[in-house]
């Protein structure tokens, strides 16, 4: 059942949006860090734990059977959300867990060696950078980077010369968590496929905002986190093509991922179980599925249009405030409603504190993207990120607060 899109109806589903901060209504513009959870998610988890909780895949009793079913149904829901088959969905603790699984497993498999190259972008979140640095260090492979241009888009000419016969892995963000720009997935995949490189998509910041069809995207593997898509912490999904997952050894080992174990040796189950050692985050899987079902019940076309309007309002508003520098300021690319910026003469931390005193919650710092900040000559920035429940009024409250920052801190306005 699809509901007509009404942001006030959507907001009513989020208990936390009734919170006040310092006497101001909370304006939560930090969904890029973690999203808030609709009541449907809180209810699903609680209901599961009060009614059907039991260890899955391990018991014959009624509760265990029911829990197993709900758990596997959740996998089906997540798979449908990205257009995939349930056997292609591996539960991970989050995107970071999924990316470490991929990099670690490639390492254990001996799939990289000296002379090989791994290509990432300059716009990576540390989660899609450091695991590759470590893999490169361990295997002797070389890590290379597609530069980001001044306007925040990837330098695709550089990509052309970087991606070549030595490239074994190309990992990149669907949407950077600082720039909000949607990267050209098809173009990047085409270059990687031409040289037979494995592609890994970090879909953390796209999953909450864009319709995903991972099999159609051409990438080989993709990850995203539940807690950024209105779902619980402690769970995420790794998606992979059958033959790609089949070829990967386990990264972590333990119970529930084996067929036969002797004291000296173990045989492993096929994917996805091969990658799911130990007790899984069962209630979180149920909550994750509830989040995606909640989202799927909205009129998504209208929601996306709503978010696109917020994006323009936010960016144009910021542009019109003197002394603001936007990171990734381009009209040439598709974007999500997430914008990082610097305020001339005022440190990001102070900006954040000032906005907080007006009830506006934004993120300040390097947002786990130090190299990208360095590229723009910054150590920190302020990031506002909207969600499906954000209103135009909230964006205006935010913009109004930003307008007052420089005079409060006595920063001289540049000529």
């Amino acid at each position, binding site marked *: 059942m699809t509901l007509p899109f009404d942001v006030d109806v959507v907001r009513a589903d989020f208990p936390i949006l009734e919170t006040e901060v310092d006497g101001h209504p909370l304006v939560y513009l930090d969904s890029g860090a973690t999203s808030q959870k609709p009541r449907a998610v809180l209810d699903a988890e609680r209901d599961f734990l009060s009614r059907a909780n039991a260890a899955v*895949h*391990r*018991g*014959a009793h009624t509760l*265990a*059977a029911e829990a*197993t*079913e709900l758990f596997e149904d959740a996998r089906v829901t997540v798979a449908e959300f990205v257009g995939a088959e349930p056997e292609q969905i591996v539960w991970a603790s989050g995107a970071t867990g999924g990316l470490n699984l991929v990099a670690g497993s490639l390492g254990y498999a001996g799939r990289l060696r000296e002379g090989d190259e791994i290509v990432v972008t300059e716009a990576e979140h540390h989660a899609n950078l450091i695991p590759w640095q470590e893999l490169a260090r361990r295997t002797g492979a070389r890590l290379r980077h597609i530069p980001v241009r001044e306007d925040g888009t990837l330098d695709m000419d550089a990509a052309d010369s970087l991606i070549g016969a030595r490239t074994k892995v190309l990992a990149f963000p669907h949407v950077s968590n600082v720039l909000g720009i949607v990267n050209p997935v098809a173009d990047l995949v085409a270059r990687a496929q031409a040289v037979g490189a494995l592609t890994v998509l970090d879909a953390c910041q796209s999953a909450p905002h864009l319709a995903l069809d991972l099999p159609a995207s051409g990438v080989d593997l993709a990850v995203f986190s539940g807690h950024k898509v209105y779902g619980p912490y402690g769970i995420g999904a790794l998606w992979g093509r059958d033959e790609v997952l089949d070829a990967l050894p386990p990264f972590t080992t333990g119970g529930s991922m*084996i*067929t*036969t174990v002797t004291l000296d040796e173990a045989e492993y*189950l096929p994917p996805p179980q091969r990658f799911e050692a130990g007790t899984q985050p069962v209630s979180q899987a149920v909550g994750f599925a509830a989040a995606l079902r909640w989202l799927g019940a909205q009129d998504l076309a209208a929601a996306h249009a709503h978010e696109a309007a917020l994006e323009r309002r936010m960016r144009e508003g910021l542009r019109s405030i003197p002394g603001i520098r936007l990171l990734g300021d381009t009209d040439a690319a598709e974007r999500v409603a997430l914008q990082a910026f610097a305020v001339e003469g005022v440190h990001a931390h102070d900006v954040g504190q000032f906005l907080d005193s007006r009830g506006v919650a934004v993120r300040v710092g390097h947002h786990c993207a130090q190299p990208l900040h360095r590229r723009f000559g910054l150590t920190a920035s302020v990031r506002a990120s909207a969600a499906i429940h954000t209103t135009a009024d909230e964006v205006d409250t935010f913009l109004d607060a930003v307008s007052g920052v420089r005079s409060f801190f006595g920063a001289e306005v540049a000529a």
Partner: protein
Amino acid sequence: MSGLDALYQELILDHAKNRRGFGLDEPGAHSATVHQRNPICGDEITLRVTTEDDRVASVTWEGAGCSISQASASMLVALLREDGGDDGMPLPDAQALIERFREALRSRGKIPLDEETFGDASALSGVSKYTARVKCAMLAWVALEEGLRQA
């Protein structure tokens, strides 16, 4: 009949004790030996199928497991013997049978196994309500399916 009695009908307990086709016979010219395992409960089966002229000439097996898995293997052998007669069941019929059996067992009690088609194995209808036990009942049938692919 309580849920438990419906699940463990007399026929099932009987087949579990007097297992038809238990003990592997000598492989023939077109034989396949398949090993299947249910990693959750440790049930195992080794099943050998021999085909002749696109028919199932013989099925024998060995293994250990719960009464459902043991009975189901035994009932499968009985069914193939009865319906196949002296020549053995044509391969497409056997494949269709496995497919229908799977469908019924996965139906959560919605599709019963009719006695006409499934013989003694129709007593396994009750299993389909117990999702955790479906794999037990399927074990031998999946092994046969795999064996037919290889033989």
